[in-house]
């Protein structure tokens, strides 16, 4: 087992997190035992096809899962191993403590910044509101802080932009405001759920550069959700690959790209179109589609699509989950390879 370097303090430890959505149609296990750690000053990239549970993970940490979803198991330890350790999974989502954490200790950046912004108020109003929610400052101070935040996220002329309404801003500026909102409570942990998916490549590059700079300045633990392997390569220190509500591979970023261990990771990487492609070059594909989490295949959930299946065991038994904090893949083929080595 290769130990990932852990120079930095662990800010948040997720252990065996399970989330279910129950409806008339049945029970959907959206998350089924997810574990990973976030470290101060480092970026964990979470990648996977849509529907694999990335957003539900983010929303669970902040305890804002949509109804009828609920956490059915696991722990989310803030400041693990310290006297202040607290399990977010055990808190009441509406409790004072949780409200302090949400937007205070942990900031959230959405794919569509308008999710976090109201159309009825100016950008300034909303940031000032957010600042005052998490610190006891006067209106004037909060306003100055808001301007400073807008400047920090690279918005030109923040003194005038503070009185703009969100719809008056371009997509890129809006996402910057979204980031300013997330930073308003001076968080140590920032969760960014596909923050650049709706943006152009150029704007995406700007926003990623901004996130990197802010992280370095504030020593933030960043959890970056994306389905773009390019963004992962660009940003992540460690990578968790998710499939059907489970982490199927976890590894430092170089390792994921140089020597992916899970067949799903390999397939995902092969399917990415390349800017170096030859004319009319075909891509390799992953057969079929992600099954609905409500009808999870038996055994290894990836087996119906896996091109590297090793036998009946894949259909019948569940491979060992990735041990938290260690690089590894949840796959029988990988286990066999490891034993051979």
């Amino acid at each position: 087992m290769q130990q990932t370097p852990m120079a930095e303090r662990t800010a948040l430890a997720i252990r065996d997190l399970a989330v279910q959505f129950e409806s008339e149609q049945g029970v959907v296990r959206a998350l089924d035992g997810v574990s990973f750690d976030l470290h101060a000053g480092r970026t964990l990239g979470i990648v996977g096809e849509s529907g694999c549970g990335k957003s539900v993970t983010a929303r669970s940490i902040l305890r804002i899962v949509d109804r009828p979803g609920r956490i059915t198991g696991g722990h989310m330890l803030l400041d693990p191993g310290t006297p202040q350790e607290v399990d977010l999974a055990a808190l009441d989502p509406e409790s004072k403590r949780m409200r302090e954490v949400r937007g205070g200790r942990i900031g959230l950046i959405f794919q569509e910044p308008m999710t976090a912004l109201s159309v009825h108020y100016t950008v300034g109003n909303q940031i000032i509101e957010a600042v005052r929610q998490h610190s006891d400052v006067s209106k004037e101070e909060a306003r100055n802080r808001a301007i400073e935040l807008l400047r920090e996220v690279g918005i030109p002329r923040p003194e005038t932009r503070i009185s703009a309404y969100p719809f008056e801003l371009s997509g890129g500026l809006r996402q910057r405001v979204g980031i300013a909102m997330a930073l308003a409570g001076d968080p140590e942990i920032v969760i960014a759920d596909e923050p650049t998916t709706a943006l152009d490549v150029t704007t995406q590059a700007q926003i990623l550069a901004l996130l990197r700079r802010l992280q370095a300045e504030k020593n933030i633990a960043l959890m970056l959700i994306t389905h773009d392997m390019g963004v992962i390569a660009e940003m992540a220190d460690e990578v968790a690959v998710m499939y059907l509500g489970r982490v199927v591979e976890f590894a430092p970023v170089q390792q994921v790209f140089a020597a992916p261990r899970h067949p799903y990771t390999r397939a995902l990487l092969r399917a990415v179109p390349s800017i170096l492609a030859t004319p009319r070059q075909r891509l390799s594909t992953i057969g079929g589609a992600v099954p609905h989490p409500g009808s999870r295949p038996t055994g290894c959930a990836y087996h119906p699509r896996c091109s590297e299946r090793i036998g009946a065991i894949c259909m019948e038994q569940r491979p060992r989950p990735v041990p938290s904090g260690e690089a590894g893949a949840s796959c029988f083929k990988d286990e066999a390879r490891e034993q051979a080595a």
Partner: protein
Amino acid sequence: MSVSTASDPPASDPRASDPKAAAAEARYAEATQLQLTWWRFRRHKLAVVSLFVIALFYGIAIFADFLAASDPHATDARRSFIPPQGIHLFDENGFNPHVYGLRGVRNPRTFQLSYSPDPARKLPVRLFTRGYTYNLLGLIETDIHLFGIEGGRPGEGIFLLGTDQLGRDLYSRMMVATRVSLSIGLAGVTLSLFLGVLLGGISGLYGGWVDLLIQRLIELLRSVPTIPLWMGLAAALPRTWSVIEVYFAITIIISLIGWTDLARVVRGRFLALREEDFVVAAELSGASQGRIIFRHMLPSFASHVIAATSLALPAMIISETSLSFLGLGLRPPAVSWGILLQDAQNIQVLAGAPWLLSAAVPVTLVILAFNFLGDGLRDAADPYG
């Protein structure tokens, strides 16, 4: 032909092993949009309950005379302000539903004769008794009513909700009032719907100055405060008009504002749908304008229009009720909820006969039910909007 799918692994369907899930899946896949809407609607418990409540009220409206126990117009000054009479289910002989008869009492101060319940005389309550004559569904002449008393002297009856000043049975009046109030709402909304769809459709379809004109008209109508506008219009109705004429005039007055809302919904949907990719696709495939509208656009906003309509209906009912309550709407001898409430206007009367206020109950119930129903329909029709 075979298009290259070289790297595709053998696809095995993980669901094949679970026939129940597969059946549910197939049912979902082949469901029409209408079915999906219904399934989504079913999840709104309050809306479903409201649907039943509304169905019940329209049932009452249709069978109002059958449900009425005594003639809602028959006055008898002596039996004014009789409090609600309970039905006693048992007597010393066992199960024998009955109400008490009436006894004439002279008021010691005014020497007026008035009736009050007489526990000594039991009048048996029976189903399907004969009473005043009416036309069932406007077709069949009959005098059978759901229930009534057997025997009894003239003037006696069953007064579940008591009587008003003129001695009319409030319960029976409420049944008939339900018919009038609900039907005027329905008529008003139909007229609004017609105007709204027509003008909203024209506005959305043609755009340009026609749209501009209609939009300004709507803004103008909406900027005039409703109550004074109605009052002015209603006050202008000649006093000599018959009940039927007034009924139609009031319908028109209350739909005057109602159509503007619907026109906005229709126009908005039209404009939105025209830009919708699937409508553009239809146009690009060479479909005619008529086909685009009727095959592709109309079905997509029918559900919105239904939802908007069910939200407009309570406004219509409230309008009629308030106009009549103010004495500007329907006039006696017509019976509507507004007119019933008008009787409860006098605080002194109310102090002596609080049961007159019971006419507010159906109004509140129906309005709430329509609002819940409308919300449910709207969510079900457009879960994302």
